[in-house]
């Protein structure tokens, strides 16, 4: 049995610093919003699967699948937490999609949650470094920003990318984030602001890096043929594709290319029977500014080395040729690691429904793509959604 799948409802917390909320509270808020929007009872949900990178290290809490199901009052519904570092949310989505597509379940809640702000920043750096190959990268003193910095230094060397152009990625994402009430940062910044912020890992500065955020996101999936029972605007899941690569940079074919992104994108476009030209907007994984540049090339929207032109020409703003990260991305929208993949999908859903706030709605958007990366590219997930 193989069925088409649709997203029938969404719900999320704001991404940011939620001092008064833990994993359970955040998951509860996102889950209740999604269930209410679908007009169903929580009891109708047959399976819960969500992404959470490290409840264990951030909060000392593992076994969060059952924890969340119980707190939502949904026992004995089966619940699972999946982990793929910053791609945990999308991998959860992939699993929820398989559960509905296969015919196993009809109503599945897919989510993501992360509580990150209860630890000091050096501890957060250490926890996030666990997304890399600990033995061969973190053990020698490298950090997560350090890995992307290695890519950035090489990319600048090979393709002549300037720090000013890199800064424009952050400036654009803050511009979009300023119009998104759910974003972590809503301030606008300038290229000068980026270039004068402190260096975290040369050549990346503080404003090249996304923040650590608390947050949760949830979507509810149903078979496409039944979706109109729940909503007038079902969003069809055209494709979800996931690929793996080495955890460390050491053995990558090319450190300026995320091969897992390339593979996942090829699979997703083939499955969806769509081309790059059909895509009206993209949400890409901009944990660092350089990551957004690499993503547009690896997804096939432009040849290697040429994404910088899109930023020079301002084509990635809403209204440009290819609007990128219309919710502010990870940089301004925030990055609650386990929830980010689902948050990106929610942004595409809002855009396809025409529900994004004034100024950041892409007119007549019909097809959107979300791209979520775990670690420095060991996991990549590409999801294509449409209004059809």
């Amino acid at each position, binding site marked *: 049995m193989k069925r088409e799948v649709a997203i029938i409802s969404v719900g999320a917390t704001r991404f940011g610093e939620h001092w008064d909320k833990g994993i359970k509270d955040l998951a509860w808020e996102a889950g209740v919003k999604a269930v209410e929007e679908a007009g169903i009872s929580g009891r109708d949900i047959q399976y819960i699967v969500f992404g959470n990178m490290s409840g264990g290290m951030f909060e000392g809490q593992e076994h969060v699948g059952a924890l969340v199901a119980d707190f939502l009052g949904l026992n004995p519904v089966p619940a699972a937490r999946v982990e793929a570092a910053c791609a945990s949310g999308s991998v959860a989505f992939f699993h929820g999609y398989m559960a509905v597509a296969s015919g196993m379940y009809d109503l599945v809640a897919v989510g993501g949650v992360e509580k990150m702000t209860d630890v000091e920043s*050096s501890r957060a750096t*250490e926890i996030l470094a666990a997304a890399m190959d600990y033995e061969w990268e973190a053990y020698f*003193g490298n950090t997560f*920003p350090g890995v992307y*910095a*290695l890519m950035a230094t*090489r990319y600048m060397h090979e393709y002549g990318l300037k720090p000013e152009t890199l800064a424009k990625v952050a400036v654009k994402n803050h511009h979009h984030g300023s119009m998104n009430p759910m974003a972590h940062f809503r301030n606008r910044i300038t290229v000068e602001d980026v270039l004068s912020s402190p260096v975290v890992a040369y050549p990346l500065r503080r404003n090249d890096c996304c923040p650590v955020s608390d947050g949760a996101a949830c979507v509810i999936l149903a078979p496409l043929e039944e979706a109109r029972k729940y909503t007038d605007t079902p969003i069809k899941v055209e494709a979800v594709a996931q690929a793996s690569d080495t955890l460390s940079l*050491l053995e990558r074919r090319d450190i300026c290319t995320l091969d897992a992104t390339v593979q996942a994108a090829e699979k997703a476009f083939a499955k969806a029977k769509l081309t790059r030209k059909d895509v009206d907007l993209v949400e890409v994984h901009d944990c660092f500014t350089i990551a957004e540049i690499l993503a547009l090339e690896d997804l096939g929207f432009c040849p290697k080395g040429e994404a910088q032109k899109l930023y020079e020409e301002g084509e990635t703003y809403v209204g440009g040729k290819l609007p990128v990260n219309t919710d502010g991305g990870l940089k301004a929208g925030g990055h609650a690691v386990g929830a980010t993949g689902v948050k990106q999908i929610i942004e595409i859903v809002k855009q396809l429904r025409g529900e994004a706030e004034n100024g950041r709605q892409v007119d007549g958007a019909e097809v959107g793509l979300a791209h979520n990366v775990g670690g420095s590219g060991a996991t990549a997930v590409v999801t294509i959604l449409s209004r059809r």
Partner: protein
Amino acid sequence: MSASDVPRHWRSMKERYRLLGTYCENCKSNFFPPRKICPKCRRKGRIKQIEFSGRGKVFSYTVVNVGSKAFEKYAPYVIGLIELEEGPRVISQIVDCKPEDVYIGMEVEACFRKLFEQGDSGIISYGFKFRPVDDSWVEYYKKLLADRKMKVLQSTG
């Protein structure tokens, strides 16, 4: 973290201290870190151990200003992605020079150093770092030996 928290197998990892990798006799590829199976040849591969010379060139680098907890006090420090002369790449610190002196293509060699102290117990973790290739000491000793009319018995390269 206490002494018992240090995974025991890490302490017996020779490759962490001596740049031991593997090569596949079937496809002649070198690998670092060591592998149990050749990803190219799969079960047709024949994996053997190899010790790399420790010489290489900087392929990319960064200067880490914000380290994770164990490395916080050493910042800023240089992290390099180093391409060994035998092909594989390693990530390691580049020391014995100023951060601003590091460049892509710079020749470096491995050296054995302290990396960090583990948690409150302070167990010292060792491993390799890389430093700029400096042959001046070889010339110095050659000259010293020549002055004393002694022969250089073995190459120090």
